[in-house]
């Protein structure tokens, strides 16, 4: 501290001096490093107020935030969204500086499998770094794209309203830095906010429906032109979403496995009611569970902290991700015993019982898996067809078991499985047509139009070829080849039929991988409008 001798200005007027004097002088919270906030009364929490009529779009808040928190340049806890409406000279440029909205009903918190989000007594939605496993599910769930994955740390981090500073009477970095005084901290009466004010003062152009998470940020907006469309500055940036390769394989393999297991169970049921069909055995059961055994651990690869994957099961109360992890974990564990039971030759009843449990848990697991994606923040995922498709993929499992049957048992019984596979394959094709029709008839008035239309563009323009391949391969491998296998098998050419079924299985698997790849890549999340160059948020 050699610079600060007793008579230097710094020690006479420290930056931490009385906020009241400063506020009297400036009339604003900004500038000073200390802040006086009212004590929260029961039923109140802290929130941001953003004055869009004062903001000049200077990005001071963004830079100050990163400087305060030592975040890398591309990890933005606060961003400035840019919108434009109207035509010259009556143009309105609207800036929206947003960090976390410290929501009353935070989706990040509800979905977090490790319970790493805490709604503090003062209302701040706080992220507990040490327990985070970097699954990034919160980055999907937040309709404002607030939580951001920091690959340097392997975890997600987010704005905490500089809670440490607030508690010490210090100004949050963004508030301190704003030269327009456009960002302030206020106390809000939660019930009154929900009942009256949120619908009026909590809304701003291009932002998601406040009902999703009930954000607390209060907006002061300029007079908005009526009926004008707001054009986000980053409208031209349409980057496909992260491909999530581990998840592409994990979901398809687990779904395939549950499908195959259903085929085994189906066989066991038919046998036990006395039909003369080939009995499943240890090898069949092993083949059925194998994809799940490979697929499930793959999911850990998408985590920032794979070593802690097991803690994903923690939040079974509110997170579909935890439920999926528990259910599919249990399915794989129980289903792994089934080949052993066959090998040991236990009674048919016991087999049926264990298989029924495994299958039940597995089906619930796939349902939970699909519900992970049924989130409001990601409109193209949040459709019933997602659940249908996830179950539909199971037909590949039927093809797999049918192939094994053809190889080992000849024509006997495989046609049953092939028929089921063809039916399910047909359903998948119908779902594709449903999707095509859905995107063809998007409603411009739909509040989700911006995101859905961008998904459409991604599907048509960026991934048109994969999309075509997905459709044609589905017809070929889920309908035509299984049909050929049925014909060959009827013509007592089981080996030829087996070869064809094998090709169908592999082809259908590839088709499902392609479909799932499209699913991940073409999602367009809700969120803040972005910057012309930097876009809206890192993914």
């Amino acid at each position: 501290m050699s610079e600060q001798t007793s008579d230097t200005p710094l020690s006479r007027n420290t930056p931490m001096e009385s906020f009241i004097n400063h506020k009297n002088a400036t009339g604003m919270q900004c500038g000073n490093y200390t802040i006086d906030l009212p004590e929260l009364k029961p039923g109140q929490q802290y929130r941001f107020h953003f004055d869009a009529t004062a903001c000049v779009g200077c990005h001071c808040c963004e830079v100050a935030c990163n400087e305060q928190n030592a975040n890398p340049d591309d990890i933005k806890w606060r961003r400035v969204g840019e919108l434009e409406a109207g035509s010259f000279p009556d143009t309105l440029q609207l800036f929206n500086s947003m960090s976390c909205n410290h929501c009353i009903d935070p989706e990040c918190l509800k979905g977090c499998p490790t319970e790493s989000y805490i709604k503090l007594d003062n209302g701040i939605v706080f992220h507990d770094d040490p327990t985070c496993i970097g699954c990034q599910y919160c980055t999907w769930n937040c309709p404002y794209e607030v939580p951001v994955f920091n690959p340097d740390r392997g975890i997600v981090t987010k704005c905490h309203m500089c809670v440490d500073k607030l508690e010490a009477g210090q100004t949050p970095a963004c508030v301190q830095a704003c030269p327009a005084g456009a960002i302030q901290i206020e106390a809000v009466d939660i019930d009154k906010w929900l009942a009256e004010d949120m619908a009026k003062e909590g809304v701003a152009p291009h932002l998601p429906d406040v009902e999703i998470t009930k954000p607390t940020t209060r907006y002061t907006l300029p007079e908005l032109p009526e009926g004008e469309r707001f054009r986000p500055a980053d409208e031209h940036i349409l980057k496909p979403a992260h491909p999530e390769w581990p998840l592409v394989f994990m979901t398809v393999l687990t779904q395939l496995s549950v499908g195959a297991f259903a085929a085994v169970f189906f066989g066991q049921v038919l046998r036990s009611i006395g039909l003369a069909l080939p009995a499943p055995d240890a090898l069949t059961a092993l083949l059925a569970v194998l994809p799940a055994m490979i697929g499930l651990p793959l999911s850990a690869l998408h985590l920032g902290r794979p070593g802690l994957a097991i803690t994903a099961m923690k939040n079974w109360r509110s997170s579909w991700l935890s439920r999926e992890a528990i259910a599919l974990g249990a399915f794989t564990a129980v289903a792994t015993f089934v080949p052993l039971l066959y090998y040991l030759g236990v009674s048919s009843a016991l087999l049926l019982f264990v298989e029924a449990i495994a299958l039940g848990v597995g089906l619930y697991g796939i349902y939970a898996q699909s519900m992970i994606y049924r989130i409001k923040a990601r409109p193209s995922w949040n459709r019933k067809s997602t659940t249908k498709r996830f179950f539909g993929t199971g037909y590949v499992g039927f093809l797999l078991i049918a192939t094994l049957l053809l190889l080992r048992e000849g024509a006997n019984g495989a046609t049953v499985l092939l028929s089921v596979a063809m039916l399910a394959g047909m359903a998948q094709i119908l779902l594709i047509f449903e999707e095509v029709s859905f995107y063809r008839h998007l409603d411009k008035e739909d509040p989700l139009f911006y995101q859905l239309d961008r998904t459409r563009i991604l599907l048509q323009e960026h991934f048109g070829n994969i999309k075509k391949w997905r459709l044609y391969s589905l017809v070929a491998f889920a309908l035509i080849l299984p049909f050929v296998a049925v014909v060959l098998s009827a013509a007592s050419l089981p080996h030829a039929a087996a070869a064809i079924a094998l090709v169908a299985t592999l082809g259908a698997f590839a088709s499902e991988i392609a479909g799932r790849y499209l699913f991940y890549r073409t999602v367009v999340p809700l969120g803040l409008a972005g910057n012309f160059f930097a876009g809206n948020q890192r993914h």
Partner: protein
Amino acid sequence: MSLIQKAKAFLGFDIKEEKYALVDDPFFGKVAKTKAPEKWVRSTCGYCGVGCGMYIGVKNGEAVYSKGDPKHPVNMGTLCPKGLSEHRMVRAKSRIASPLLRKNGALEPVSWDEAFSHTAERFKRIQAEHGKGAVAVISTGQLLTEEFYMLGKFVQLGLGTNNYDGNTTLCMASAVMGYKQTFGSDGPVGCYEDFEKADVIMLIGANIADNHPILKLHIARNKKKPTIIVVDPRKSKTAQMADIYVPIKPRTDLALINGLCHIIMEQGWEDETFIRNRTEGYTEFKKHIMAHYPPQEVAHITGIDVKTLYELARIYAGADAAMSAWTMGVNQSALGTDTVSAICNLALITGNLGKEGGAPMSLTGQCNAMGTREFGFTSSIPGYRNYADENDRREFAEIIGVDVERIPTERGYAYPQIIDAIDRGEIKALWVVATNPLVSFPDQNRLRNALKKLDILVVQDAFMSDTAEIADVVFAAATWSEKEGCYTNSERRCNYAKKAIEPYANSKADFYIVKAFSTYFDGVHDMLFAHLNEPRDAFEEIKRVSKGRLCDYSGMSYELIEALGGIQWPCNETYPEGKKRLYDETMACPTPSGKARLLALDWQPLSESTCETTPLILNTGRTVEQFHTRTKTGTIGILDALAPEAWIDISPKDAAKLQVKSGDRIAVSGNRGRVENIVVKVTETVAEGSVFVPFHFNTQLINAVTLPEFDPKSFEPNYKQCAIQLHSEAVPEGIRYETDEIGGYLENLSVETKEKQATSETIEARE
């Protein structure tokens, strides 16, 4: 990394909590632990002319934090994004570590002695062969005042060449000459506090939201809710603040201001007492304005309807205190000087001078453009003295103890004239200090060709700029935070910038570069710098040089400047703590009569207007995240990501003609050059037929297209308007020119004169 560490990192057992932790700092509260400073050094920002007070956090001899000083009257604790990240440019990869000399075509590190002796020997030889003036110097607005003073003395009195100018000619010169015309001297008359006190704030060609965001703080503090008028052909971020946005046609502001004066005088809204007591030239002025700038004519020129003109005049003249502030939209124009004076005219006839909230205020672009104006020895002798005035020359010579014969009797070549002289072969050596003409000067192709003719190009810079890349010798300079001295901001506030850390590697502060270099010239050091051993000594000499002058520093000291958070000159016995506003009732203007001059000034149309091959008007400027040629801000990741390359704002109508949308890439061509690969931003912030491109980027060098036309009084380039064509992939030939339809009386007017007939014939022939 060991295998175990790798495995641990992969599995995610380390979330680097320490790296992202906060710790308590006794002065600023919570700060990031990894860069928690050992000490804070109070200083001043080194980017723009706003002049923000700040603290530099220092850890292990490196600058690690920049934080706004809440006690500083300019910024009250805030900083713009550039200031907030300023410490990050100090150790950028592009810093120049040691002097460089071109050997066998490549720049190689050499000792200071080798760099100096090589340069001195070349300078001497060139001056012996071609005359003293064959060596020219172009400096900057970025050095500290003490450094400008050293450099100016050395160049004018040591090297003996008056072909010395700064890049301030590219930004502030018109304000300087305009103020001189009107008030008899340079010196911004108002202060930032006027933003807080004004009833009306008229921003003309000033995009403060992008370029001086901290000034928004002062407007936000204005409790009177002032009426904000923004005059700009572009609906800039600043225009968003406006209560009244005035979308004038490009470079018609002089006509607009004259038109407002007309209405005010026509309606009798002028301040007669003020005009009578404090101004001169009113009669001629009124006659001129009333004869030539009737509202209908002005409406036609500016594109602003008569009703709005009356409304503007009424609001401006009706305000108790009206402030007008301008920046480059006014200065960077071939009519810059006169437009500045016209703005002063408007302020004068409404009595807005020397009072709270009422001032015609020029906002400067660089941190110390003012310092070089005051003591830089370029367009005037230090202390706002005239070359032509014998008394001024003698007085200065006596104070600094040199022979009066050494003081030049006239200003040498201005910046653009230096380039011309290089092109002609008259100037053989150029020394460029802390500026980057290879991005910033207009008509790049011509500039680059001219520079090839030099015998030697010396560049003194802290960063490996585009210009440094082509230099023969590079002097490695220290930068902000590594040196000590003063910056003067737009409101004449002299701020103290303290040295916080040692200069990078083998670089030197510009003060010491000049001082050391002078020893290579016989007797020069002893004559000029014998007693100037550190910046403080130069500051003491500046105080003597300025005593009794308008820019009087005689009452200042580094200690007092620090204690007061900067001092607005004049600071002397009369004004011991400085003076907020110039030319109030107690202070006469430095004109012979002591009164401000009302000047009869004329608007002129653009010299390069749109035509068939170039149907659009190009406007250039800055963006908030970047500074000038990006030698500093381009090295800062977070700023670079927000604006990594140039873009072109074009209206949806023009975009439709070119069949482009945002994100597409197009080329810009003009009469002097072509720029490829500019990303399109379709926006309603520009009018149809107008486009905007920021000038920061060497990747899309828009100054290859801009016009080398200069204000005849200030030599400032007309950067803001030139005619261009756009070329998209779909429409490579560009936009079709649509002639203005002529209607009404003019439609039936036949052209009689022979000359005009000839013109129309040629036009027909061409068609």
